[in-house]
């Protein structure tokens, strides 16, 4: 908060760290600084988003214009290639984009800064985490180029299709796929241990459990969910690799195995996993909403309890993915009830967000637009989930485009909208430059509008009974009619617009990074601790003798009788109110 003269020369404050370890790019590669590791995760994740986006472009072109030569792909998309593309698109977007960016990158970046620590508790484990993740990235990318091509058994990898190369036709690709995903899980395990321990043990003096920003809580709860659910999937994955490579028969009914076993193990992980990615995005959004509504979060503790309750419930809904897998109808009833129950806390969170907005003095900056869009779009995803959760309706909807549109209305807000919200909000902190707001808004609208134009038509297709996972609808006379093809073309063209709009984002990043105005410490006048250090923060985050001390929760906005409408966590009570900083300017007041 205060800038005595010495603070301005902070660049030298951490010189004692500079001579640790190797120099140059090696230094970067072997850095244990949580901010560097966060950037590594972030840029790897963004690169993978480009890969996944390219795949979407290719298979959407095939769907809209069957059997044309797709520009950039170099030919017609064969059926095998189509399967491989959709499989790896899903896998990459969830495990190599949503998780690394939202959980790993922002978790790594924000947790130490927001709890006032100089780094993670286990910096070396943190580095190892990224290194394992990097190897897993190479494995999954390599799997696309081996003989037979990348795995083509759908991202859920149901056996027997996934277990037997005579079915999926990708003998090497499928094994590399399982190994890649397995390594990736190990990476997040290592990261998660750090997140939990750091929150427990490294909080700044004075920071009690209920002074921790919600995004940190949510990332940590998400890590705990991940930890609790990933074990069974790892067990399942080990058995799947054995089935693929040495010919055991865990999932093969002919030898006494059980293919449904995999579905249970996968979805016991898979459903909590959707909350693993949802919660960090939810946390990011609430931080942004309070900051730009200049209002205290409505029901801070209730939010935390709700999130924990959601986490617990999320372990009891998995079979709603298996309503037509031959499970007992009585079981289906139970899982219908738990699924409907779990929408209650999620709906509650949405209401909390709206209540936080209510009566605030809202500023529609780019991050705020993204945050608001998250709430609005996710709502559609959540509501359509209720249809799918009702076993009766799901018998019709299962494996149609309705399911696909449902989970894109959940995952897209999370992985794309949530990430853009977080990225634009913390960009000044991460890179020390302000982003161009006008370009940001263009990018926002040109992403959000086409997004809806892609996926609302897919709901229509799903309600019309269009099965997903078909590469060429014109080969099936019963699916080809009724003008559905023009709906597909419409969705594909919308996708092209949306992909093109991402160029604005990259241009904005590059331009702002090169020549944007320098970011002050606290451009948004927010309360949490990361805004009390330099932008970007130095190694160690604060000077060792200036580590923050916390006096209150992070959401004291618009407190009556204070001249300013915010009250940073590290400011003792009774600090004088008058502002004398010349470079703070008018911004944000």
């Amino acid at each position, binding site marked *: 908060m205060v800038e005595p003269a010495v603070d301005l020369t902070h660049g030298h404050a951490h010189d004692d760290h500079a001579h640790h370890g190797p120099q140059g790019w090696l230094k970067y590669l072997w850095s244990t600084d949580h901010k560097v590791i966060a950037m590594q995760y972030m840029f790897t994740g963004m690169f993978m988003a480009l890969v996944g986006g390219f795949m979407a472009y290719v298979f959407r072109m095939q769907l809209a214009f069957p059997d044309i030569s797709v520009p950039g792909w170099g030919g017609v998309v064969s059926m095998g290639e189509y399967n491989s593309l959709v499989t790896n698109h899903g896998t990459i977007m969830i495990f190599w984009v949503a998780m690394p960016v939202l959980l790993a990158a922002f978790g790594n970046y924000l947790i130490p800064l927001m709890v006032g620590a100089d780094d993670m508790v286990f910096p070396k484990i943190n580095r190892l985490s990224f290194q394992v993740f990097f190897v897993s990235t190479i494995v999954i990318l390599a799997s696309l180029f081996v003989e037979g091509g990348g795995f083509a058994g759908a991202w859920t990898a149901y056996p027997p299709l996934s277990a037997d190369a005579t079915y999926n036709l990708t003998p090497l690709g499928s094994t590399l796929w399982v190994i890649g995903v397995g390594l990736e899980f190990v990476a997040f395990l290592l990261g998660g241990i750090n997140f939990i321990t750091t929150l427990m043990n490294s909080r700044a003096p004075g920071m009690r459990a209920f002074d921790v920003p919600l995004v940190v809580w949510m990332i940590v709860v998400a890590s705990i969910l991940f*930890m*609790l659910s990933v074990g069974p999937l790892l*067990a399942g994955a080990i058995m799947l690799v054995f089935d693929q490579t040495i010919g055991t028969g865990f999932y093969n009914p002919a030898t006494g195995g059980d293919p449904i076993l995999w579905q249970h193990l996968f979805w016991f992980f898979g459903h909590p996993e959707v909350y693993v990615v949802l919660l960090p995005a939810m946390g990011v959004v609430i931080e942004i909403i309070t900051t730009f509504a200049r209002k205290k979060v409505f029901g801070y503790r209730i939010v935390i309890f709700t999130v924990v309750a959601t986490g617990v419930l999320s372990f009891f809904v998995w079979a709603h993915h298996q309503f037509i897998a031959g499970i007992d109808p009585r079981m289906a009833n139970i899982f219908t009830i738990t699924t409907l129950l779990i929408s209650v806390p999620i709906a509650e969170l949405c209401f909390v967000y709206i209540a936080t907005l209510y009566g605030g003095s809202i500023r529609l900056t780019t991050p705020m637009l993204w945050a608001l869009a998250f709430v609005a779009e996710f709502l559609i995803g959540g509501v359509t989930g209720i249809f799918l959760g009702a076993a009766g309706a799901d018998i019709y909807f299962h494996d149609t485009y309705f399911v696909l549109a449902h989970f894109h209305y959940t995952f897209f807000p999370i992985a794309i909208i949530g990430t853009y919200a977080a990225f634009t909000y913390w960009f000044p902190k991460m890179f020390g430059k302000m982003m161009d707001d006008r370009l940001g808004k263009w990018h926002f609208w040109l992403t959000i509008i086409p997004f809806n134009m892609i996926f609302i038509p897919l709901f229509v297709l799903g309600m019309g009974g269009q099965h997903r996972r078909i590469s060429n609808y014109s080969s099936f006379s019963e699916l080809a009619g009724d003008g559905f093809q023009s709906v597909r073309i419409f969705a594909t063209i919308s996708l092209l617009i949306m992909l093109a709009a991402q160029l604005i984002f990259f241009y904005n990043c590059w331009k702002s990074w090169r020549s944007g105005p320098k970011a*002050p410490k606290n451009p948004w006048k927010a309360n949490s601790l990361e805004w009390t250090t330099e932008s970007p923060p130095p190694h160690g985050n604060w000077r060792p003798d200036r580590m923050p001390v916390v006096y209150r929760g992070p959401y004291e906005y618009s407190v009556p009788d204070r001249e300013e409408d915010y009250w940073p966590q590290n400011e003792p009570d009774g600090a004088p109110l008058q502002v004398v900083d010349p470079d703070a300017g008018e911004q944000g007041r």
Partner: protein
Amino acid sequence: MAARATIIPFRPRPEKKQLISDGVLGMLVFVFVEIMLFAGFISAFVIIKSRAVGSVWPPVNQPRLPVESTAINTLALIASGVVLLIAHRAHLRARRSGEDGAVRRGPGPASPRGLGGLPGDSTGRLLVAATLLGGTFVVLQGVEWLALIREGLTITSSTYGALFYTIIGAHAVHAVAAIAALGWATMRLGAGLLTREALSTVAIFWYFVVLVWPFLYVVVYL
């Protein structure tokens, strides 16, 4: 950021009392994941067993598992856990009575925390005993595996064999890793560098390996 008229007192960070130390907490989280891993294996076992043709389990043409000799082997493992528990407590006690632990045995640079082995401290001997008992368990298991393979139980001979080698093999991998960790702790102790936290971290892992075994034994062997 707006500078203020007064300087906010940045207090030096007080030394914090942690509920659980970093290493122990990290290991506990990890052990939780491991528990879920084995829970996954056990549920797979139960599900596949429940689908056995004509409810015959183990399959008729497959060799039986050595229930009795494994029971004895189980005792070796549990004994190892108990010995480690005693070693763990001896280490804590020695640390406490040894003031700042300035009395050190063996060569090596003076450690700032000064946690060398102390006179009359039985930790070292007990640690070695626990490690050896654990090693015995792994070796005997290996001998049994060789016998089973000779009798025709392999990982591809049936889902029974596949489950057996996968689950028990996963446990064996953990046991070997844990024994290596115990060995490391013993070496650190010899060098006078073994902290309470480090020993607790390693010990928790071994307790996990010991405690999960009876469950596996009951589910898989009986």
